[in-house]
């Protein structure tokens, strides 16, 4: 095991109300988390915003001290020795403030130097990573002059420079175009194939989770509510079909059968309803909305095999939380 987490608990204390900011109750951001990540895995943490993904990752990287529990990374106790994390893993956080005013080349090179490489090795790794990620043309530009996706790619370059057996990447591809995403996943995969690098990935992108992850832990309110391969998780809801209905205006609740559908919907978001149904029931539902008077009010409908989002709903995740799960 590269990373073993047992009984991790972290509570953010309640904050008193200040002028302009209302009081917030104490939040149990990690609520008894157990995790095992094997060597060479691309392991994902999936969940909506506020599920506790980043809090968990910050405890795995020694940035945040847990209230209870143990974190072992590559045989080292990181609760007792948080300073060792920097010498075991490469971390890509969500924020780029520390690098924003540097050029892409200098940000990468400086990070390599601070990761312990000598000047020559740092320059060589800088050139290799920038070539690998296709950052060559941007090398002389300051990060804050770049678009969001380009800046994120430069931060990925800084995270990848200098060899580390474990990479912890917090939403690495946010805002990137498909070319950049492909470059990132190719770079990650190459490190895994050549050096057996393990990757711990935070994402709220369902499609990305399904395509690049070996295993995924689904998080909700500080807990891991399921942990399996994406295929394994989807098998939990394999006997169901996802029906999505989009109404033109207010749904015609007085039309026959529509109120019943509203009752059984898993998620209602404005004029969009999401239902998980057995295939027979799905067929009946489609017949209801397309055959009767309700069809005039229907804008669009889709039938699909279930995704990880449905797994999340089936496991009892907050329905409103799915807003935080991105599908594109």
């Amino acid at each position: 095991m590269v990373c073993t987490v047992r009984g991790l608990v972290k509570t953010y204390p309640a904050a008193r109300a200040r002028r302009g900011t209302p009081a917030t109750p104490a939040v149990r951001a990690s609520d008894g988390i157990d995790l095992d990540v094997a060597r060479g895995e691309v392991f994902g943490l999936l969940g909506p915003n506020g599920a506790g993904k980043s809090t968990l990752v910050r405890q795995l990287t020694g940035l945040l001290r847990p209230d209870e529990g143990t974190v072992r990374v590559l045989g080292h106790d990181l609760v007792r020795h948080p300073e060792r994390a920097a010498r075991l893993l490469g971390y890509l956080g969500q924020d780029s403030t520390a690098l924003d005013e540097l050029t892409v080349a200098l940000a990468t090179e400086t990070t390599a130097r601070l990761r312990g490489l000598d000047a020559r090795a740092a320059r060589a790794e800088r050139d290799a990573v920038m070539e690998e990620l296709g950052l060559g043309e941007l090398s002389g530009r300051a990060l804050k002059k770049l678009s969001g996706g380009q800046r994120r790619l430069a931060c990925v370059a800084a995270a990848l420079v200098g060899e580390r057996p474990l990479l912890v990447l917090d939403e690495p591809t946010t805002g990137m175009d498909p070319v950049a995403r492909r470059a990132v996943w190719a770079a990650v995969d190459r490190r895994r194939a050549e050096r057996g690098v393990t990757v711990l990935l935070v994402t709220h992108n369902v499609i990305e989770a399904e395509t690049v992850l070996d295993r995924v832990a689904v998080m909700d309110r500080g807990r891991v509510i399921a942990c399996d391969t994406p295929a394994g998780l989807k098998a939990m809801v394999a006997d169901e079909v996802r029906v999505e209905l989009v109404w033109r205006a207010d749904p015609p609740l007085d039309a026959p059968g529509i109120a019943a559908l509203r009752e059984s919907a898993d998620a209602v978001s404005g004029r969009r309803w999401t239902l998980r149904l057995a295939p027979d029931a799905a067929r009946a539902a489609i017949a209801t909305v397309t055959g009767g008077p309700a069809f005039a009010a229907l804008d669009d409908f889709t039938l699909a095999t279930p995704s990880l989002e449905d797994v999340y709903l089936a496991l009892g995740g907050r329905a409103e939380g799915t807003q935080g799960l991105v599908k594109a």
Partner: protein
Amino acid sequence: MSVVPAQARPSGITGGSAPAKAAAPAGEAGGADVPAPLAAGARLFPALVAVYRAQLSRARVARIPLLFVATFQSVGIMVLMRGVVDGGAEARSVVAGSSVLVVAFVALNLLAQYFGQLRASGGLDHYATLPVPPSAVVLGAAAAYASFTVPGTAVTAVVGSVLFQLPMAHLWILAAVIPLSGAALAGLGAALGLLAPRQELATLCGQLGMSAALLLGVLPAERMPEVVSYARDLLPSTYGVEALARSFDAQPDWLAVGADLGVCAGVAVVSLAAATWAYRRAAVR
């Protein structure tokens, strides 16, 4: 619906398939109980140089307009004070105070703001997850900010000497005054920025520190009430101002200059140590 799948997926990554297909390199710890070797950390001096170089490069993008502001502010103050003081000891302290004010503006105020911003935004995580000694980050940033002050301080001192007809023979003392008072004030600024619970407070502390350096450094000490002069003695920039002011004498009292600079150096050591401690505290929350 999506732009990610299939096409964005390199052929090698097969989601859901068996993990760990890569062969384990020899000598790598696989078991949970055998700790893997730790990668080498960055040593203090190379890391300090890397941080210094990176911070200095920020000047080109972000700092130059502010350096102009700092210099114009000091020159403007001297022009104003020309109508108030009439040569002698007061003129010396005005020129010395205005010159060191540039150091206070950049090293104390701007560095406090920088670290305050870095801490508030989570930017410190970047350094905290690199194997770099905390003192390298603090000293590298402090050294860079102290370096930013060199042109402005030199220009202010020369313009002031011309304005008030002071001798420029001993201005070389700036080579000691800038780094020592720069280190003291940068350490103070870094500590304030890292300790302030909120970013706005870091900015406020930096501004207040600079205002104190302005009022207590530029205004002639003899005209101040006794209580204020105690505050003046507590401010580290005062000793840089005094050392520079003494060097305008025809026959400077080098012992006193040395003593003033010694106080600066002492404060620098203490404040940089405090800033390093504050950095450690801010990095792991």
